[in-house]
């Protein structure tokens, strides 16, 4: 019997570390955003204690033998492992605000220049989703402004369609004077409220 136990003990040692169960290796890394922002993740491995990772290229690694290590990787290590994966990330959602001439669905000269930037960004996206929301200032009645805000959004949509964005990928809506960028009393002419928001995904 004793001899049998000895054989068993040797067998356990021979198969490797008996202290932690074999597990599927995994690696979690926080990467900086385009604007330099460093995020936070919480990793809980094998039902252990949760660990917070909140540093640039900070990483949590689960080894095949079940050991858990906290480390900091280099940018080149991350690129080597995740290069093609990071490259496949779709373009970040973007938001633009363009301004209109008073009472018209015509952009201000400054916003017409800004529009070129929106066009340039959209050209980089293979399949953009665009939401255009038109707004007005508080000059005039509710109905008049609803109509004007819709006209602004639709005018913007037409311009985007001209650029080559498929019409079915663009949603246009008007919010009238309901969502002021700069809160004002009624019947106040405010250039910053005469606008469209363009959300691109």
């Amino acid at each position: 019997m004793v001899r049998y136990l000895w054989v068993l003990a040797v067998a356990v040692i021979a198969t490797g570390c008996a202290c932690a169960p074999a597990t599927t290796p995994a690696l979690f890394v926080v990467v900086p955003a385009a604007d330099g922002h460093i995020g936070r993740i919480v990793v809980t491995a094998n039902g252990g204690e949760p660990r917070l990772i909140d540093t640039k290229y900070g990483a949590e690694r689960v080894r095949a033998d079940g050991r858990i290590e906290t480390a900091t990787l280099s940018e080149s290590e991350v690129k080597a492992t995740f290069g093609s994966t990071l490259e496949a990330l779709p373009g970040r959602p973007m938001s633009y605000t363009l301004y209109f001439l008073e009472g018209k669905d015509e952009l201000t000269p400054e916003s017409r220049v800004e529009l070129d930037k929106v066009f340039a960004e959209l050209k980089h996206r293979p399949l953009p989703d665009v939401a255009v929301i038109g707004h007005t200032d508080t000059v005039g009645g509710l109905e008049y402004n609803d109509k004007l805000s819709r006209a602004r959004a639709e005018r913007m949509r037409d311009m985007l369609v001209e650029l080559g964005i498929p019409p079915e990928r663009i949603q246009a809506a008007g919010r009238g004077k309901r969502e002021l960028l700069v809160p004002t009393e009624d019947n106040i002419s405010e250039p910053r409220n005469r606008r469209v928001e363009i959300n691109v995904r």
Partner: protein
Amino acid sequence: MRKILILLAALGFAGSALAADIGLVKVAKGSVQIQRGTTKIPATVGTGLQQADVVVTGADGSAGITFTDNSLVSVGPNSVFAIDKYRFDTTTHAGEFEGNLKQGRLAAVSGKMVKQSPDSMKIRTPSAIMGVRGTEFVVQVDEPKKN
């Protein structure tokens, strides 16, 4: 009743652009497939995704997905990524996103639901679970080593 079910199934299958879409494939390189139940759909730019879909890439494959809450996920080569749970309320921004990386690599950028409630997005792997407080991160799962 059975006819209705078949009809619903047929509609669901045909309507990749129906309201059930939780995301859209924006980038597809090499071999990328979506496993939906027992069917496999080749994924191309514009393919809609639904809850419970599994994204499977080949050795030359990678895919980028935009979700309705503006979160982004890309899946690298030789990967299997299952979207176990996804819901997002565009009005309240409340939601739940549970992804499961069974194999391979992914990169992700969290979106509006994490901004609203930091516990709403999780990525599982066979040996660990990650809560996403925001915003950008990468995950790798290796094949388990045989002893």
